[in-house]
């Protein structure tokens, strides 16, 4: 169970109000899509959830506890670009999450634990269709393949919340359709909560179980930075949720594609 609670959230930089009075409840296994005009604070909202920005006022709670003020393994992130490690092969990029979490001193696994991690990474590589490229470096992959890997990399640690910052913004339309199926598959496999910022209205309706629209409700033409954006629409959607129990997933856990 993961419950995100946002109460009276404000974010200001110097004289600029970016977000004002944001209140929100996000339930377990939701797929929240966030849209809004550019510069309306949707990325700021995501960065607050990620923990790289601190709220000026208000509270961010995860299951009733305050959200940690720095990024951690409970919240995964996929950026539009640059989130792969160029010096690691596809397989090593995937393994890294398991190695960092499983070995606090050297950051590498050995023997039986390494084999278990390899198995899990290989299963996930299969699920995202990158088995053929497992020895390649990220620079040798196409944009779509890079994003597949980036998503798989975040999912392998099984975060409770997965944050997506316009993850398909730089991809071709055909590739994007594939990516939609992939992200829905992983979302149902891991039963995580997803918050996705996008500028594609169609995508936001198609993927989400809840659509948030950020916009300014107050506007001062003499001082445009005086008022910030807030959630103007909070629309429940049908989504693509599958009813199946959450699978317990450890280093050796299944991560089986349910409908690969």
């Amino acid at each position, binding site marked *: 169970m993961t419950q995100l609670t946002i109460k009276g959230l404000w974010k200001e930089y110097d004289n600029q109000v970016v977000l004002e009075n944001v209140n929100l409840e996000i339930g377990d296994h939701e797929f929240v899509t966030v849209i809004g005009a550019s510069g309306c604070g949707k990325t700021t909202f995501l960065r607050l959830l*990620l923990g*790289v920005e601190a709220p000026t006022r208000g509270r961010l709670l995860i299951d009733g506890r305050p959200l940690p003020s*720095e*990024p*951690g*393994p409970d*919240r*995964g*992130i996929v*950026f539009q*670009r*640059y*989130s*792969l*490690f*160029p*010096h*690691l092969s596809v397989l090593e990029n995937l393994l*890294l*999450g398991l*190695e*960092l*979490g499983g070995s*606090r001193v*050297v*950051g*590498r696994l050995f023997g039986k634990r390494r084999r278990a991690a390899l198995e899990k990474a290989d299963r996930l590589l299969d699920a995202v269709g990158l088995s053929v490229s497992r020895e390649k*470096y990220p*620079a040798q992959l196409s944009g779509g393949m890079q994003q597949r890997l*980036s998503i798989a*990399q*975040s999912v392998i*640690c099984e*975060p409770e919340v997965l944050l997506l910052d316009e993850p398909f913004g730089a991809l071709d339309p055909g590739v994007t359709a594939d990516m939609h199926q992939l992200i829905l598959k992983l979302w149902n496999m891991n039963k995580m909560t997803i918050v996705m910022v996008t500028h594609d209205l169609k995508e936001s309706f198609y993927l989400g179980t809840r659509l948030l629209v950020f916009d300014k409700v107050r506007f001062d033409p003499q001082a445009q930075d005086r008022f910030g954006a807030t959630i103007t629409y909070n629309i429940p959607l049908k989504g693509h949720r599958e009813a199946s129990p959450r699978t317990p997933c450890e280093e050796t856990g299944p991560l089986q594609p349910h409908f690969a």
Partner: protein
Amino acid sequence: MPRLINRYPNRVQAIVLSLLPFAVLLTAYLAASHVRLVANPEDKLLPAPTTLVEAIHRFAFEEDERSGTVLLWTDTAASLMRLLTALGISAFLGMALGIIVGVIPYMRATLAPFVAALSLIPPLAILPILFIVAGLGELAKVLLIIIGVAPIIVRDVALRTAELPGEQLIKAQTLGASTWLLVNRVVIPQMWPRLIDALRLTLGPAWLFLIAAEAIASTEGLGYRIFLVRRYLAMDVILPYVAWITLLAFAMDWLLRVGRAKLFPWAGPTR
């Protein structure tokens, strides 16, 4: 007829063209040397090829009467020992301090301005201090190179570290990396090829400081020998020594470049 910027030499042409300037220089030297020697057979400024070969033979293959060693090799060994020791220590300092400064904001605030100031001290200006404090032995010469080279490497590695996309560092944190693991698994591996680039750029200054230190206080070494025989206008020794130093520097640069491509194929072509 395509534009000049769109016309490329083929492989053979490229090799011939690359050798051309060397051939021109060599021809010019031989001609000038010949003209001077015809006018004055005792001329020492531009020795004839035979004189150069004699000098090379004397220094590279015959034992010196006074010291009983083959001078070119003892000089080369002494110089390379100093240079490589200094470069090794500088590389270590560069990686350690550069990454710490690049990754940890508190260390950046503490050390970045200090390193920037240090790197602006002209090393030759403090050479007398080194000789006074560290004596005339190996230490002072190695220290001079380190002082000249290490701050540059530290600054370069720190800049390259800071250039790593913020997305990568955030991603690593969401995968559970502590500062320690982040440095070990994400930053250090990506900085090795950058360190090699920095070393290649500092090879020139490193040789400069080595020869300067050897010229002033030394009993052996390539720089020492050049400045010693200068007293007798021995161009027949100086020229081969300069060519040899150039060749050594070129070989080191080549090794670093090839090693980088072999060891870090992901790092892309070298600039």
